[in-house]
């Protein structure tokens, strides 16, 4: 589990109000809050820090390269458009990972090895930006110039996922299927409606499809590829092999006779030997443009993907109360599954109970309450952890309270109406 502390950065002031400011990132981490309270800043910083830790671990970057010339701000945080969020000496960012601790304070970054690299699993990090539907709305994203870097990186991964798809796949909503015409590079939505079969280019499909298809395509491809490679990569990454690769990296970096271009190529070749072992999926607003029922289907798919490999992680930002409600179903579902597994229930009762559970939430999409955390970000720049009851997210979250507030406000209007006309 990694931890991140953020203070005086963008809209965030004192940051997390517990644990000396360190937020835990668990198997499933959800960030909620009003516009401009810093959800995306937290998600993007976590992506950046995780990426730096991975690059340092693999030897693709040397600590001195990262810490010098304010590269952390000008290069690595600029990648996520975070450069102007820094506030001089006031900004504090501290990331504690399993392999490295990165501390930014007094306007400079320092890096420490944490001594636990054995526990570190190399993550495939995917940041899924909120602008992803833009890539679906145009026919040839390849030809677009000036895309934000994170969107461009997502497009590269999406493009790769499209090419790697073998036979399309069924989408969890809309009774539809995704297919990709590789020779003409056209993504298609094929479905069945009362009027018969239809076939639409993704660029012509509804905004909901344009939002969730790229998300699912990339998440599915990465989760599956890591799951398939996992067994092979385990042995390749263990003990001696890691040391050997590390010493080879050092040799390349310290060799003054080869050009930096050649060095880069050699490092890339070498780093390919560090197969990704886990999937860190950071998703902005999975609910984008979706009907509540579809939001549930997409969330359950993302939870299914996070469950494919033990140490996968999912980070979500959301404005949707449904996401919290459906996550609650996934948590309660896991609790019942765990109780069924440990209790002496007659086999026939157990089978029936699992069938009933499956009708609500697939067992592969359930998640333990202890592996889940919801953070609320407020307008004062404070971050707090949402209370739980037996692992279930509290009903007193910002999104749910806002639904209840509509009741309160409606009752106020009834009062006003009564004052005016009942007498």
């Amino acid at each position, binding site marked *: 589990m990694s931890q991140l502390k953020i203070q005086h950065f963008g809209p965030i002031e004192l940051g997390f109000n517990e644990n000396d400011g360190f937020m835990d990132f668990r198997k499933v981490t959800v960030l909620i809050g009003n516009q401009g309270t810093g959800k995306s800043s937290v998600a993007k910083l976590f992506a950046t820090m995780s990426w730096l830790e991975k690059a340092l671990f693999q030897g693709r970057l040397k600590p001195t390269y990262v810490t010098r010339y304010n590269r952390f701000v000008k290069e690595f945080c600029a990648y996520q458009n975070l450069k102007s969020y820094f506030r001089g000496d006031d900004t504090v960012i501290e990331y504690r990972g399993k392999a490295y601790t990165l501390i930014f304070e007094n306007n400079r970054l320092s890096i420490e090895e944490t001594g636990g690299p054995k526990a570190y699993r190399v993550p495939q990090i995917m940041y899924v930006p909120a602008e992803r539907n833009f890539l679906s709305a145009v026919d040839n994203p390849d030809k677009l110039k000036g895309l934000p870097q994170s969107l461009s990186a997502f497009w590269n991964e999406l493009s790769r996922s499209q090419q790697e798809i073998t036979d399309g796949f069924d989408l969890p909503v809309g009774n539809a299927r995704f297919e990709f015409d590789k020779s003409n590079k056209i993504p298609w939505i094929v479905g069945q409606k009362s009027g018969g079969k239809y076939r639409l280019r993704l660029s012509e499909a509804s905004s909901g499809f344009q939002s969730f298809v790229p998300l699912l395509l990339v998440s599915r491809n990465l989760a599956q590829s890591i799951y398939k490679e996992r067994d092979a990569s385990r042995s390749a990454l263990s003990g001696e092999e890691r040391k050997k690769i590390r010493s080879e990296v050092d040799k390349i970096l310290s060799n003054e006779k080869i050009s930096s271009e050649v060095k880069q190529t050699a490092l890339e070749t070498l780093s390919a030997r560090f197969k990704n072992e886990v999937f860190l999926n950071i998703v902005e607003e999975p609910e984008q443009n979706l009907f509540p029922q579809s939001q549930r289907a997409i969330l359950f798919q993302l939870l299914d993907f996070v469950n494919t490999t033990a140490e996968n992680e999912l980070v979500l930002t959301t404005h949707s109360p449904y996401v919290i*409600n459906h996550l609650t179903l996934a948590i309660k579902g896991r609790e019942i599954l765990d109780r069924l597994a440990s209790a002496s229930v007659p086999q026939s009762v157990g089978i029936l109970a699992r069938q009933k559970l499956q009708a609500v939430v697939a067992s592969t999409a359930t998640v333990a309450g202890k592996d889940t955390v919801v953070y609320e970000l407020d307008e004062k720049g404070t971050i707090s952890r949402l209370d739980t*009851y*037996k692992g279930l*997210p509290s009903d007193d979250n910002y999104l749910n309270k806002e*639904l209840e507030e*509509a*009741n309160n406000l409606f*009752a*106020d209007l009834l009062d006003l109406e009564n004052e005016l006309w009942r007498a």
Partner: protein
Amino acid sequence: MASIDFLSGTCQDGTTPAQETTAAVEFGLCDDVPKSPAYLDLHSPGKWVACVRNAKAYAVTFTSIDNCIEVRRANGEMESRCDGLLTYDDHLIFVELKEKNRSWLEEGIGQLAITIPLFFANHARESFVSQKAYLANSRHLLFQFSRTSRTQKFQDDTGVLLFVEAEIVLP
């Protein structure tokens, strides 16, 4: 604490009737008279805080509790109670009726959570095949919101399934 018979049919003043029974397929529960018990009504839907749908025409009894059955705390103060309960064919439904804009949810759940153990301290839980609790608010009929963690806690505290809605449908 002395035993309390919630189902005697009479309030503790010894005169006010505490129970009414109907087999109507639709009726309401009202609580619009200050300092008086909540009551069952067949004719004035405009006053209903909760509406009971009784498609199978069970003989349903509404028993008043608040302003009818007195329960004192150890210090002599009156204990907070829910408005009443519905019974039919060994099924039991605790009911709290609200007509309030704000702070009604915690307050209503609290009243139900206090009344339920008091009731079961005096009447065997096993004699009822199902036990539910309804919190209705005539001013909050429109927008639904999640009550998952509250429902879980209520179930753990009382052993009774909580519904926050103004329509009580008898299955």
